[in-house]
């Protein structure tokens, strides 16, 4: 008989420290591997893994504008695999796994310019609230 696939995505990356600084505007993530990233709150917010942003599939994914001044208000551990970030725009449903934080750090330049391009195409801006 055939079985459904059993995928075992164990965390490849493990952070040593998460440091929230600049009044909640910057999350510094230091990984055990020695790599460290500085992730702005705005970047984390618009890349939130929450279904509110990602939808249920690539077609449903939303581009958020107007988050230039967003700040992180809470960093809560979730099990041993992730943190839940709360933002001051009351978005609290994003659970960021270690691997996702690593991906956001390692591909920051690429993902950020992609985001800026999406804003441009959809007629949104970093300063004006709106989503598409």
């Amino acid at each position, binding site marked *: 008989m055939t079985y459904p696939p059993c995928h075992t*995505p164990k965390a490849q990356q493990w952070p040593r420290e*998460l440091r*929230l600084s600049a009044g909640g505007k910057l999350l510094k993530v230091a990984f055990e591997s020695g790599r460290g990233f500085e992730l702005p709150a705005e970047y984390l917010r618009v890349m939130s893994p929450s279904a509110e942003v990602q939808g249920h599939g690539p077609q449903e994914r939303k581009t958020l504008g107007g988050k230039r001044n967003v700040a992180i208000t*809470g960093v809560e551990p979730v099990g041993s695999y992730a943190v839940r970030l709360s933002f*001051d725009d009351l978005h609290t449903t994003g659970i960021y796994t270690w691997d996702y934080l690593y991906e956001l750090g390692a591909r920051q330049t690429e993902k950020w310019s992609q985001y800026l391009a999406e804003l441009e195409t959809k007629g949104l801006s970093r300063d004006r609230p709106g989503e598409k």
Partner: protein
Amino acid sequence: MVSEQDIYAALRAVAGPDGKTPLPETGAIAGVTVRGDKVYLSLSVAPEQAAALEGMRLAAEQAVRRLPDVGAVLVSLTAQKPAAAPPPRQSRPPTPPRSLAVPGIARIIAVASGKGGVGKSTTAVNLALGLAGLGWRVGILDLDIYGPSLPRLLHIHGQPEVVERRIQPLEAFGVKAMSIGFMLDEEEPVIWRGPMVMGAVQQMLRDVAWGELDCLVVDMPPGTGDAQLTLAQNVALAGAVIVSTPQDLALIDARRGIAMFNKVNVPVLGVVENMSYFVCPHCGERSDIFAHGGARHEAERLGVPFLGEVPLALTIREQSDAGAPVVVSEPDSVYAAAYRDIAAKVQAQLEGAPVRAAPKIVIE
């Protein structure tokens, strides 16, 4: 029926929170409701004043009661934060992160199964007693909200006592025991909604006076739902033991269980094959009722340890239902030996691999 105007007029005789301004002029009257001859009045005051204003509340109650056509009066003080000037959003300081560790408990492991009826609770109890037999201080927590069975399996009854707002766990055979079943009536159906599950899980972990434990064994509800996820998210689990029968049907679900624990980074300590085979008590012939070896096979395929097999035996079933788990009631039996062996493998894994330290969270 009394009118609101009459009530306001009567309340003019009562001094407001400052001790002189008539109450209706202070803006403290948050609501007046008249139902027949009953009057409900709510007065909104600053939280820190609430205790001092009991006299004002009584005076208001008496003033309204003196009105004609008024039977009963209920005046309540509602403490409200001052509505003026809500703090600007930007200045709200980040909340400090809470800890996921449960004080006093060195490690928490979950005993889970993909489907019900595979003997998960019996395995959990005997595993806990096996670990206690190896010298560990052990607690067992029955979180099977759909069918809590610990009270029966350990033959313990009654409501746990509450001392200094902490629930005292019951004790049986040297292990501390707590079950969601102690809080419920055996005959009552239980309808659990998501948030209730989360609340119950939190309470069972943090409001119970477990004391110092080397290991807390959690008997999970079958499946991959809210309770499992809540536990995995709110506690740093040291590992999970998956119980399955060798039957394909059960193994498919067991695989889902393993996948779920993998997803939330909880190490799978291994798979136990329960009801592995049946030896007829009369003729001694062995029958592989659910086929045999399926769980071992599956464990190998998925790369998780195989912890052992426990036969389907009348003794285990009878002793379990009688509240005398086979590890303690028949310690020399092959069944007890099977459980002890499983416990030893679990203990070795837990001692060998300390829980990976959670990252430090610093809020500047």
